[in-house]
């Protein structure tokens, strides 16, 4: 991976998805560039997660998707499962909103981190273990070497979320889709994770699609911001513009709803 700027790493055009005949995405357009963080906010149930899952070909059973998802000059929609398998997990990785989807409950953290590396990067056991411990340290897990031997349920909710981030980063992906990756973190640990992601973008050219409902997080790391409502992207633009001069009424309502009690006033 090089630091030179690349064009859009991932482009989603006119993505439509229906689940069991019910339309959930009505033509989503999004572009994520190398070395940039594209923030995606939006109403609960508006289709943020389904957009991410569609990129990885992991939509729920009974779904249909149409449109175009371009990655490396190819359309991921309609790609044979075998080819998609090579892309998924190695070149495009996802941190799932539900940590249980990212982590296998019966496998040690070491297995989950190194299996991907050995399969996709072809590194040996010792090197994989060293890299795995390094990744855990990067996501601020205390005692990373010892932590490798433990199982997911032996960690706190926020630690599991960070381990899922480490698993997603294990194979040096080009694109990371992170679906609410810091909801289980306090703000100081969250700051560490945001700095880590920002660093990977700046130094290695990682492209990040960051789904978050936290507009503070959005403001801290996103370069571009898109806002979804009812299965559509209703607004896209540079972070400063969208957060300071929102054009769509829904974006404005999100900003207006931020809980900011007047200084010095007590709780209700």
């Amino acid at each position: 991976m090089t630091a030179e700027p690349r064009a859009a790493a991932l482009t989603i055009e006119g993505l439509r998805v229906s689940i069991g005949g019910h339309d959930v995405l009505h033509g989503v357009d999004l572009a994520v560039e190398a070395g940039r963080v594209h923030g995606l906010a939006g109403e609960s149930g508006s289709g943020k997660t389904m957009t991410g899952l569609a990129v990885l070909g992991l939509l729920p059973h009974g779904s249909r998707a149409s449109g175009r998802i371009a990655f490396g000059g190819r359309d991921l929609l309609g790609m044979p499962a075998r080819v998609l398998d090579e892309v998924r997990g190695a070149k495009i990785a996802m941190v799932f909103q539900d940590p249980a989807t990212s982590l296998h409950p019966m496998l040690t953290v070491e297995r989950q981190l190194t299996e991907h590396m050995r399969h996709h990067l072809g590194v040996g056991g010792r090197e994989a273990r060293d890299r795995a411990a390094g990744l855990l340290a990067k996501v601020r897990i205390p005692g990373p070497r010892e932590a490798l031997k433990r199982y997911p349920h032996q960690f706190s909710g926020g630690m599991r979320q960070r381990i899922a981030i480490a698993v997603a980063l294990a194979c040096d992906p080009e694109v990371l889709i992170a679906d609410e990756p810091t909801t289980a973190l306090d703000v100081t640990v969250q700051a560490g994770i945001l700095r880590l992601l920002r660093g990977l973008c700046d130094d290695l050219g990682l492209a990040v699609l960051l789904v978050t409902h936290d507009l503070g997080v959005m403001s801290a790391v996103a370069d571009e911001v898109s806002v979804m409502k009812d299965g559509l992207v209703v607004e896209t633009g540079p972070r400063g513009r969208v957060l300071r001069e929102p054009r769509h009424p829904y974006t404005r309502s999100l900003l207006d709803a931020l809980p900011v009690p007047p200084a010095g006033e007590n709780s209700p």
Partner: protein
Amino acid sequence: MIMPLTGPLLSVEDLVVEHRTPGRPVVRAVAGAGLQVAAGEVVGLVGESGCGKSTLARALCGLHGAASGRILVGGHPVTPLGLRRRNPALTGVQMVFQDPYSSLNPRRRVGAQIADGLRTAGDTATSPADVLERVGLPRAFAGRYPHEFSGGQRQRIAIARALAARPSLLIGDEPISALDASAQAQVARLMRDLAMESGAGLLFISHDLSVVRLIADRIAVMYLGKVVETGPTAEVWADPRHPYTRALLAAIPSPDGAGVLPAELPGDVPDPADPPAGCRFHPRCPLAMDVCREREPDFGPVACWLHEPEPSSLS
């Protein structure tokens, strides 16, 4: 369900809770924590990821035994859930679990799961659809299964189920983390209102400090297994005294569009299996003094040598 009370509704004294795994060092996740919640009061519990909040919450519901210390709910001691006998302290305690995916039964319709709560409360007038409506979901959702919902929708369902049982003590472990910003404040207020309406106490565990500020009467700040600062929310916000509380409040990212990354705490996240001697925060504290490395500040409301209570106020 309101219990006749003299003391606080929930009282936790010097609680120690350990995780033991064969062949591993003991993890003392809660290491002498104290906490009180009065009836009709909302207490926000905040702290670093991994500091022991969920372990504490599970101990309060009898899901995890205490190694030492005391938990009283409505004056009754909480003991780990036995095989058959219902613990009198625990009738009336409801918890919304941190993980909204695993706390709902995947094989039962959500309406049936909410009906369980209504039955617990002996409520025959309310239907599960009514409860869904109160948490902002369509009535028709009652007929669906948990996997058919988005993350935020599931979280509202978990809240609906807990509220349906009309608890006297409601514990929410990150109950709003999957909701969008506008819904968070709204659902948090709803939890507060519904708890207050029935004179219940609410222990609200959350990383979302702006929401905690909005709904909590008091906050308790936890660091590495201990409650290090407690106080009325507005006071702690205006004048945080423990250096950890200060770092925490300073790291809230602002939604101003400026692209500023907040500061993280210096140094490594500590391991509860191997806590630092003296003040547990000293390796990361910008104000650490010699005494901090040697003696643990074992007092309240601010467990820090810079805020030692006057001798007269020590009991």
